[in-house]
């Protein structure tokens, strides 16, 4: 039996202790999921590592290093960095709207920092979880529901969500909003707040409609009736459904997906990669991948529950939920359950920023796990 350093809880952990404490099972699981992604990128490129799979592998290895390094950083350090990170992300987000480079679909999502192109909305997802966890760490259950204390986290969620929505990027704004509100819920927000808010949200749908961009309205209308625009936006979704559906139970086999190989699928290496899995591996493949995702989420929930600090719990569950929302929105979108929004499948879709942001999240999750016995006094939760 390996001697557990946490037998003596108050002791400061050495680096080797931390490395020992990392949840390597979770790391393995993440690697397996990433490998599924590489395989699919290899397939949609017609059996070549270029242009996607090779690059993505390098990114993953870099992400793995970052993840492990982050896991070893003390959870209290993360707590200290929570607000500065949030402020930085917010600043970049504002900058994007001002000087942001016009990206795909005419949306301002990217900002160029020297040679690196950055998507501040991705950065915001993580820093919002950090900042909210830190803020809520300082509040007792009953305090969460007091209007004065609640206004601050609502603003912390609302400001970036609106900024991202203005870019416009409905998908990411939705994730930011859902993620933030979920954290409030988990921190113990009273049902007296939650139920009326839900009702209000449903009632305000017609009003929200007026604030949507024409292309977003277009997508929603197309979603409600794909035949309305069968060759335009509806084409994407119907081709995606054809790809998935034609996979059947066991799929057409690796490298044998006709829809993807013959370019009927749009964005097949990014947002629509789920349909390639469905086409080539069928229901069995898709459900297996969903199970892998579910296990990762299970790990996240367990880590959250085992943390001895409210900050750790909320941070762990926050990044886990973020991961979950990615999956939910992407899968629902490509299967025609919700309108098309530009959200990738985490760890599977091609794309550097998205992968990095997910892996940074896992780094924080691992850090919570490594430092689960660390107790943090409540006082350090105040804003100042």
């Amino acid at each position, binding site marked *: 039996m390996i001697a557990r350093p946490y037998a003596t809880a108050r002791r400061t952990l050495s680096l080797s202790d931390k490395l020992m404490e990392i949840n390597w099972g979770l790391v393995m699981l993440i690697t397996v999921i990433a490998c599924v992604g590489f395989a699919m990128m290899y397939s949609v490129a017609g059996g070549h590592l270029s242009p996607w799979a090779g690059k993505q592998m390098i990114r993953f290895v870099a992400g793995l290093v970052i993840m492990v390094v982050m896991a070893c950083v003390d959870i209290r350090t993360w707590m200290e960095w929570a607000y500065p990170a949030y402020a930085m992300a917010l600043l970049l987000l504002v900058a994007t709207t001002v000087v942001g480079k016009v990206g795909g679909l005419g949306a301002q999502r990217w900002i160029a920092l020297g040679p690196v192109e950055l998507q501040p909305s991705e950065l915001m997802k993580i820093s919002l979880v950090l900042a909210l966890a830190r803020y809520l760490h300082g509040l007792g259950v009953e305090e969460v529901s007091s209007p004065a204390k609640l206004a601050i986290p609502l603003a912390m969620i609302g400001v970036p969500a609106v900024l991202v929505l203005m870019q416009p990027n409905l998908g990411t704004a939705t994730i930011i909003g859902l993620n933030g509100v979920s954290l409030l*819920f988990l921190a113990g927000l009273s049902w007296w707040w939650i139920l009326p808010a839900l009702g209000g949200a449903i009632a305000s749908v017609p009003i929200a409609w007026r604030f949507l961009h024409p292309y977003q309205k277009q997508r929603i209308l197309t979603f409600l009736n794909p035949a309305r625009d069968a060759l335009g936006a509806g084409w994407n979704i119907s081709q995606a459904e054809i790809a998935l559906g*034609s996979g059947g139970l066991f799929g057409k086999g690796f490298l044998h997906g*006709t829809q993807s190989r013959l370019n009927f699928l749009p964005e097949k290496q990014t947002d629509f990669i789920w349909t390639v899995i*469905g086409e080539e591996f069928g229901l069995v493949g898709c459900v297996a991948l969903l199970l892998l995702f579910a296990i990762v989420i299970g790990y996240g929930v367990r880590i959250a529950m085992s943390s001895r600090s409210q900050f750790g719990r909320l941070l762990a569950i926050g990044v886990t939920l973020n991961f979950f929302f990615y999956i939910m929105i992407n899968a629902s979108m490509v299967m025609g*359950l919700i309108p098309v929004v530009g959200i990738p499948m985490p760890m599977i879709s091609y794309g550097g920023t998205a992968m990095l942001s997910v892996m940074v999240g896992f780094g924080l999750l691992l850090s919570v796990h490594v430092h689960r016995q660390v*107790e943090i006094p409540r006082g350090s939760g105040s804003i100042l």
Partner: protein
Amino acid sequence: MPLFDRKDKSRYNVFTRRTLIAGGGMAAVFATLAGRLYQLQIVEGQTFMTRAEDNRVNQRLLAPLRGLILDRFGVALADNRRNYRVLIVKEQASEGVETALDNLAHIITLSPQDRERVLRQVRQNRAFVPVTVIENLNWEAFSSVNLHLPYLPGIVPDVGETRSYPFGAEMSHIIGYVGAVTEADMKRDPNPLLSLPGFRIGKRGIEKQFDPEIRGTAGTDRVEVNAYGRVIRELSRDPGTPGDNVYLTIDSEVQDVLTRALGDQSAASVVMDVETGDVLALASTPGYDPNLFNVGISDAQWRALMTNDHDPLLNKATAGVYPPGSTFKPSVALGGIEAGFGDLQVFCPGSMRLGDHVFHCWKHSGHGLMTVTTALQQSCDVFFYTMAMRLGIDGIDASTHALGLGQPTGIELPGERAGLIPSPTWKRSVLGRPWEEGETLVTGIGQGYVLATPLQLCTMAARIASGRAVVPRLTRYIGQAPQPRRQASLLPFSPEAFKLVREGMRMAVNVPGGTAYARRITKPGYEMAGKTGTAQVLRITRAERAAGETKTNDLPWKYRDHALFISFAPVEAPKYACAVVIEHGGAIEPFQVQVARDALLFTQERDPSRLPTAYPAAVGDLDRTFAQK
């Protein structure tokens, strides 16, 4: 788990409860996703599989090779020519389409219009779609392009098939032509082949009549395509069945002689085998060049064809109707003899009175005493007025119908007309007036309402010559299937009646005083028998007749009489019949007789049974030939 903070315990409990709720929510979402997968992949999987297959596989029709049209000796009258063409593919033109065309223009001439069209089509199509630059190149130009190919990126030489008509205008009215498919064609024929770009279907003549047989059946090419329509690979290929060849009864040499004999007249003529009904030649002049219609006729060319007063687009042999004039007399004679008037003798004083009408003979001085044979020889009108009166209009109808007039012959060409043999019933129902006896007289000399096509006249001559109800036919084989050919039934006239009429027709050509004597066939054993005819286009007025002007040759062309002639040869054992109609040919020059003479003489000389054995058929024959010498 030991906790140092009491308040944290309650937070922890709330967090745990809420996390369980969230976990339940996540599980529900995952279940929904799995359910949706089940619905898409299992419940509707088969539908989507079909749709994916439809996406992927593109079935293309392959145009079958059109069957040939051949004459009776296998000479091609409608052929498939190789169409040497040059295409351009944008994505292969590494130096750009403009440069590629510039380079190509150094080798072949390229008009600015062509250039513009190519550039436009290249813009309109995807980069991998080949666009035709130029078609119908000759071999030299085409091989020159091939030679320079390494320096012409993007240029693709290609060989297609196109219809060609080597005999041009000469065969135009028999063969017809193929042309582009119109919307009306597509409505009539749902065959998807018609929608192939560049597909041609028969528009006239044999090409139209036997289009389904000549066309063949389409092949299919199943290919895998990507989302942009680019062909990735071929899955399977069925080349289809080429169309049937059509073997005609036409002898291209006879057709050639006949067409040349007609010259630049607006005329029609038919040469037929009197026993089988095989049409050896069927000419209608002027013709048109059918190749023009295939490659695309210009507006000016089309207008010239439409406004020509010689009507080059009309097949006058089957769709032109003319009063037969005196060529009608043999059929009246046949009916009269059969009705018991064979020994009728009539004195011709130059005219005949019926009621208060005077009916003139073409010979004002009169023919004197006439019998059936001399009346046919000299074409005495008064004799046939009398004969017609004795026979009556019903008798004329019966005998002329038996000889094939007044109804379509059933020749295998579209647009044949029936002509007209008038009867009292017809007149009452169409014109609403009762029949007058004078009209029986006029009908007796083939004037008045009577109308016939040159093909009907030739059929009539053939029936008189053979005594059988021969039916003209134009096709011998469609593919491997011989066209039905049955022994024609005997006509309801006695051999004696035929003998008398044939004798009269023999005398008309071969005895001095006969109307066609000047242009008879003098070669012994090849003589022809015949009957001339003149059909009035304008009624000659009493004033004109008084002034002595009864010839129409001084009138403008379109008011002149039609000149007709029916004939058969050889006289003793008739084998071939010929009918000639020269529109507005006038009456003085027996040009129409000369046409028949040339055609019938040539045809008889070509008859295999008359040919000297030029090439012994076998070694045994060769020995015998030497032995005889």
